[in-house]
């Protein structure tokens, strides 16, 4: 990673080459309905379309047909506790088109953790059930502590 400032290239500028610039791209889950050959990314704000294309082609050997970018306004939210409105950072989106015969499916990353979640839910449900039973049993004895029983 380089700490050098990466300037946006204008035609006629001296070609500046920064070794390992501060670039990152994050694959994100696309909105529900999307052409199968497009992939969505978040990327660093300084990246141009050319940078995105080179990043994918040169590092990951992904055949890129077309890149469209847009900058999305960050969300406004109320600061917790303070009550005033704050704004999140803007995000640069990159929509990358792959050749038309390719198909991209977003990987299911949390496959294992899903089972764990389900088990967790199950135990929770059981606990709820027992509590309900307990309440039901002691319906006729309000305000009596739990240890006061046979």
């Amino acid at each position, binding site marked *: 990673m380089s700490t050098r400032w990466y300037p946006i290239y*204008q*035609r*006629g*500028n001296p070609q500046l080459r920064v070794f390992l610039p501060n670039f990152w791209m994050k694959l994100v889950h696309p909105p529900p309905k999307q052409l199968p050959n497009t992939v969505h990314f978040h990327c660093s704000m300084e990246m141009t379309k050319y940078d995105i294309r080179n990043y994918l082609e040169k590092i990951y050997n992904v055949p890129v047909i077309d890149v469209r970018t847009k900058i999305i306004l960050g969300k406004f939210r109320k600061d917790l506790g303070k009550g005033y409105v704050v704004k999140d950072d803007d995000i640069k989106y990159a929509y990358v088109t792959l050749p038309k015969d390719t198909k991209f499916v977003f990987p299911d990353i949390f496959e294992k953790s899903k089972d764990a979640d389900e088990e967790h839910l199950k135990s929770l449900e059981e606990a709820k059930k027992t509590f309900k039973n307990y309440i039901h049993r002691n319906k006729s004895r309000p305000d009596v502590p739990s240890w006061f029983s046979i």
Partner: protein
Amino acid sequence: MKLSQVLNRQHIGFMFKKHWLVQGKRVPIDTGVEEVLRAKGIPVEDALEFVKEKPEPRERINIVGQYEQPLPLDQNHPDYKERPCYTLKNTNVLLEGIAQAQVITKTILAEDKLPQKIEELAEVVAPKTVHDGVKKAILSANVFDTEQKKLPKIKDPERPAYNFPRILGITDRRRNQILTNKILQLVERSSDTEATLSKYVVNDVECKTVFDKEDDLIQFQDVSNILVTSNKPLTHDTEKDIPFVEIPDLYPIKHTITMPPEHFYTETSKYPIRPTVSMRHPHTTWLHFNSTEVNNIYETPVTLPQILGRSLTHAFTVATSYAKQLYGENVKDLPEPVYINCIQTDGQNYHFGVLELNTLNLDGKEGATNVWYCKNNLKLYDSSRYFSGMPVLENYNPKVYGYINAFYNC
């Protein structure tokens, strides 16, 4: 009232200004560090010693940009010349109109007279389908075309500051283009194959001619909206015993008036079609008069003689540029006259002319002269527009088509 009274009042802007002045001259507070350091024997150096040298000015980067930038118009421009060249472009008109054009081009006038052959051909009656086609062309140019662009501002002389809503419609440029092209198409389709085979039609080509007249360098730059060329030079049998209008005396006006002097020009004439092309001889040139584009340089409205003068200078430009391509740049008296037909139109009025170019020696009034036969102000129709929501074509004049047809077929 004294000024200080106002200034002493609470005034936040004034206060800020004063505050800036005060804050701008801040004196560093003596923290006593220097004393302490010196006591401990550590040398203290003045920071200003290090910033004494001024940074070197960096060279400006020459940004190329997406498109090539035009060269600045100064004395280093390759086309710059010391001697001014009086320029007439197709968006300008001569002050004195046809009279001034006559003087510059050394031309005598045969008014309301066209060569005999044209008059004869113009009498030929065209079939009804052709006239229907012309009517359709007029309607399609004035009424049915779907261009919706801003038309010139409407001004009421009674209340010149009043802004009327801007009307969208067919611009005069587009109207003329449609009308002339459609009429020419009709003429071609209804003519014999031999006539059409020997001709070629090009649109919007530029002609340029540069010549000397009485120690002045003059150039005409003109756009021929339709240029019909043929495979052999056009000839006319002309009569010599017509009452010609001789070249007038413009005194006290000089003949270069309202032609702005230019310093950036090339000294060669330009005919748009190269000499290798067999069908390069100019036959008929069509000139559009677009009232939004053609202006006097002094904002006065364009008058009829000025429009007629435009026809002559235009025909002259095309003919001379062709003659110069044929006989060389410095030709004076032409071995054979060059003929060219010219039709100028603003859509409604047609001005027909035939130029006989005899000489390019334009000094004085003696010797050989050029001849301009013309027939002006023929109206194709009285009005054609949407009149209260209905398309209207009033008073179609079939004679004009006869002349256009004759010009094409002569």
